[in-house]
């Protein structure tokens, strides 16, 4: 263990609180071995050291640290100004070579080194942390807790009340600090301490004992005792609630198997799927509770044509499904339950609310507000999770330490299978070699010709992609127009099966899904001929092209439905265009699912068999994470678009996601291997959540808002029949409220001025932008502070080296003096 070195400077250091823990109750004291070797008290060992030092002194070119060569040059230049008198030898790195045993002891007990391995140091560090936390919390006890004979000045109670006896060990101070913190902070601190469970248990018991002692000394009123027990009970129930939530998480074993074989990248796809399931469950619960259930319990009075169930309904969503609670058309436009048959159209709550009813449920209002609230809450949850993942994955000052971060954080501990571990090691080796090669070749710039060629190839590739996307957009547009005209001409003729007519409607979804499947493959082919600077740029470009395709498809479809079908629905023989659009979306979802199945079958299973048997490759195909996640986002956008027109669509989406999960899981296990290129899981997850929020949810909300704001609902079905827009239902209700209750006119005035006035939105957006600007300035300032602090730490490091060298020279002088005395004695 570290003996007390007789060094004058040590004492003031101790007083200043910078002590290194002298009595190390170290869990790891393996440095002891090194120290034991060197402190044999034999003159031979010190003689050896002396010789080594001497030989080091002689060589001017210090090459005794072969591995860390380049830094040495840097040191020489920096050290020249700090050279001491007497031609001292120059600064050197603090390595364990050639130092005396005392110096080694001091080095080993420096706080910066002991904190990484020593229990006493950790306790002392956490003692300081808890002290700081206490200062921040400033928990002052109430006067009632003090006995009358306590110290007179309560105002100065605080940290000064602690005993400052130097003999009180750090651990007792830690216990004292913990005891004075509020309970939640205490639990958090205890959990966050990097000590073993046994030690934490001891500390916790000491804290509890102290607390019990203090509590038993005071006479607690009934009220505070009750409060205490309630708090304990609340905490226990909170823990059991957390465990219950944790046990509800589905698919844990399967996810573990996937991560054990493929690592974090492929796991992120399945976690994203799980997130989507939760969003849809939330949507389903909201619409189910507020829309489906009330309407199902009180079915509408109008006689509906009931058709028998034939299997085709599952595919087309129409037929016997079309007049059920699944679609918009089923919902009534009056308040439930309907007691008297009113005039029919546009009957509102006013006539009925005057009756004495126990239960009245205004259906149009409920529909409007439920959909609005569902979207709003989903938006908030998504924006919140987006900002959290942003905070985690994009940090300031990130650019420089790629190699270090790769070395320290690239090992994925979740991977269990031996083969996958081997693949991962190979990957890491390749990546490290590539990064090193890049660093050494940074200076070679490619010639102008080469760069020009590369840009040309990029241009050609982008032209192909954009042209094909535009071509497909035009194709889908004309095809949809063709179908529209076809329906216009044919709806009068009652030829053929009505089921066949509906089956013909499956053509548009099939075409769109086919395009969504084939075109990304084309993009991949095109990308093969391009050369990118880094694999991440390649990934981003692929995602960008795919996204462009999908948004354009959805844009054309939305235009077709809202711009063509909705205004002209009577010309194609529909009574209820919203139900029709809902059915269309159901068909699209279904086709998307069928094509995912086909893609898994052909893309993964057959391709693996093909490449193994025919191409004789040893490696299985790679699971394309980005493309699959974009498919999921596309499906979710369809579900969000369709909630307004078909409140049960989230349930369909949940079912579809469950099936997709199991299919993809089995396919991945059988047919694929982990990606060979480095996959930055957390950055990609951030991008995908952002894509889910901004194009997907935002686009769906814009469509839904446009529908509610400007499109005329159908006149003979649905909860908004007869109104000029769906939004009017809300306004109507406000007017009714105002009429009934003049006090609430404030609310309606607020509604007119804030919600309908665009000026308010401008002001709000302006304030938002100003806040963002301030935050970015704060971040800039923090960057500057970080670089200043780095310089300061560097200077402190120089100080440290200087002191160690002085220590070493003092020891050497003592040794020399001792040797001289001994040699004098021996000669006499």
């Amino acid at each position, binding site marked *: 263990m570290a003996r007390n070195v007789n060094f004058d400077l040590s004492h003031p250091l101790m007083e200043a609180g910078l002590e290194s823990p002298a009595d190390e109750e170290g*869990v790891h004291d*393996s*440095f002891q071995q*090194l120290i034991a070797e060197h402190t044999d008290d034999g003159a031979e060992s010190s003689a050896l050291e002396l010789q080594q030092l001497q030989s080091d002194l002689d060589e001017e070119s210090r090459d005794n*640290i072969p*591995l860390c*060569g*380049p*830094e040495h040059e840097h*040191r020489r230049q920096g050290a020249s100004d700090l050279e001491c008198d007497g031609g001292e030898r120059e600064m050197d790195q*603090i390595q364990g070579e050639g130092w005396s045993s005392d110096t080694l002891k001091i080095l*080993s007990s420096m706080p910066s*080194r002991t*904190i990484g*391995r*020593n229990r006493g140091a950790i306790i002392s560090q956490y003692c300081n942390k808890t002290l700081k936390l206490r200062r921040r919390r400033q928990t002052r006890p109430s006067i009632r807790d003090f006995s009358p004979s306590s110290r007179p000045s309560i105002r100065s109670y605080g940290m000064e009340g602690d005993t400052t006896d130097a003999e009180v060990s750090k651990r007792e101070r830690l216990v004292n600090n913990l005891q004075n913190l509020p309970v939640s902070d205490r639990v958090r601190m*205890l959990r*966050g301490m*990097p000590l*073993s*469970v*046994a030690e*934490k*248990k001891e500390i*916790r018991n000491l804290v509890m004992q102290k607390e019990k002692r203090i509590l038993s000394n005071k006479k607690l009123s009934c009220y505070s005792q009750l409060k205490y027990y309630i708090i304990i009970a609340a905490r226990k129930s909170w*823990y*059991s609630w957390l*465990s219950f939530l*944790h046990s509800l998480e589905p698919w844990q074993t399967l996810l*573990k198997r996937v991560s054990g074989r493929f690592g*974090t990248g492929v796991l992120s796809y399945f976690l994203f799927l799980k997130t989507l399931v939760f969003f849809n469950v939330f949507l389903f619960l909201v619409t189910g509770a507020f829309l489906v259930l009330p309407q199902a319990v009180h079915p509408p009075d109008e006689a509906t044509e009931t058709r028998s169930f034939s299997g085709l309904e599952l595919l087309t969503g129409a037929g016997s499904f079309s007049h059920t609670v699944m679609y918009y058309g089923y919902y009534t436009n009056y308040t439930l339950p309907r007691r008297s048959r009113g005039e029919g159209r546009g009957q509102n709550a006013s006539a009925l609310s005057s009756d004495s009813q126990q239960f009245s449920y205004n259906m149009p209002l409920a529909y409007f507000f439920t959909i609005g609230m569902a979207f709003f809450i989903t938006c908030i949850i998504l924006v919140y999770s987006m900002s959290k993942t942003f905070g985690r994955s*994009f*940090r300031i000052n*990130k650019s420089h*330490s790629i*190699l*270090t971060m790769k*070395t*320290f*954080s*690239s*090992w994925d*501990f*979740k991977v*269990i299978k031996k083969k996958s*571990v081997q693949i991962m*090691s190979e990957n*890491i*080796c390749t990546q*490290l070699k590539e990064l*090193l090669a890049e*660093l050494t070749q940074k200076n070679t710039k490619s010639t102008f010709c080469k760069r020009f060629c590369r840009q040309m190839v990029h241009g050609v590739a982008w032209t192909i992609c954009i042209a094909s996307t535009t071509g497909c957009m035009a194709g889908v547009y004309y095809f949809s127009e063709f179908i529209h005209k076809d329906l216009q001409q044919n709806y009068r003729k009652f030829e053929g099966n009505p089921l066949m007519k509906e089956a013909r409607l499956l053509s548009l979804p099939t075409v769109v899904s086919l395009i969504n499947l084939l075109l990304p493959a084309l993009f991949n082919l095109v990308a093969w001929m391009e050369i990118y600077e880094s694999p991440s740029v390649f990934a981003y470009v692929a995602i960008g092209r795919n996204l462009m395709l999908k948004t354009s498809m959805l844009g054309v479809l939305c235009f077709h439905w809202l711009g063509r079908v909705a205004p002209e629905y009577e010309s194609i023989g529909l009574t209820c265009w919203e139900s029709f659009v809902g059915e269309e979306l159901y068909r699209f979802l279904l086709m998307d699912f069928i094509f995912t199945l086909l893609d898994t079958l052909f893309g993964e299973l057959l391709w693996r068999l093909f490449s193994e048997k025919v191409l004789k490759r040893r490696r299985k195909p790679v699971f394309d994470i980005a493309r699959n996640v974009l498919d999921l986002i596309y499906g979710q956008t369809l579900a969000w678009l369709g909630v307004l027109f078909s409140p049960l669509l989230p349930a369909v989406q949940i079912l579809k996601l469950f099936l997709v999960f199991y299919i993809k899981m089995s396919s991945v296990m059988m047919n694929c291997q982990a990606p060979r290129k480095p996959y*930055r*899981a*957390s950055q990609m997850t951030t991008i995908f959540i952002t894509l889910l929020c901004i194009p997907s949810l935002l686009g769906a909300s814009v469509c839904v808002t446009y529908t509610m704001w400007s499109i005329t609902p159908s006149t003979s079905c649905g909860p908004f029949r007869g109104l000029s827009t769906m939004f009017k239902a809300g306004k109507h209700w406000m007017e009714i409220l105002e009429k009934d209750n003049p006090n609430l006119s404030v609310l309606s005035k607020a509604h007119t001025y804030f919600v309908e006035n665009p000026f308010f939105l401008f002001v709000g957006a302006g304030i938002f932008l100003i806040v963002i600007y301030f935050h970015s300035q704060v971040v800039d300032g923090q960057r500057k502070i970080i670089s200043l602090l*780095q310089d300061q*730490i*560097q200077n402190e*490091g*120089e100080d440290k080296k200087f002191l160690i060298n002085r220590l070493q020279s003092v020891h050497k002088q003592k040794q020399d003096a001792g040797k001289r005395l001994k040699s004098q004695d021996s000669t006499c």
Partner: protein
Amino acid sequence: MGTTASQLSKESLSEYQELTFLTKQEILLAHKRFTELLEKHEKDQIDARVSMGKIITLPELKSNPFKERICQVFSTSEQKDGSLTFEDFLDLLSAFSDSATLEIKSHYAFRIFDFDDDGTLDCADLEKLVNCLTGETNDAKLSSTEMKQLISNILEESDIDKDGTVNLSEFQHVISRSPDFVSSFKIVL
């Protein structure tokens, strides 16, 4: 307090829930897996230890190149033989769990990577680390020039006080800027 009796007492369970980042189910599962590793006569012993040789047969650790270091870091035995009691095992799982803080994870990662246990990562530690990462087969190793270059680059990027080693604070500083660390430093039973 004995914890390897066949059943965990309710009190110990709630205590462990408070002191570690594990949920109740995870603690119970850990208890089950730990008692499977014990001999029959040890099952009722208080504070029984499982040797390192047995711990590294767990499927979650079997192929991990850092398995011996992990056992040694979390072991509280006096003989430094890497044997674990149940509480050490819980410590291990807690540090590698989903809800552990970045600070705990980086602290234990540092200790695992510190092969010579001297409180800093010097050139020898870094070399051993890179060899563990790239595997033991000859063609997957880095050549000695590449290794030297890599280590000097790492020290240049992360050694702020320029003393030739990476201490805990510098390590934590680097790790805090790496977003993938938290998700990759996980082991689930």
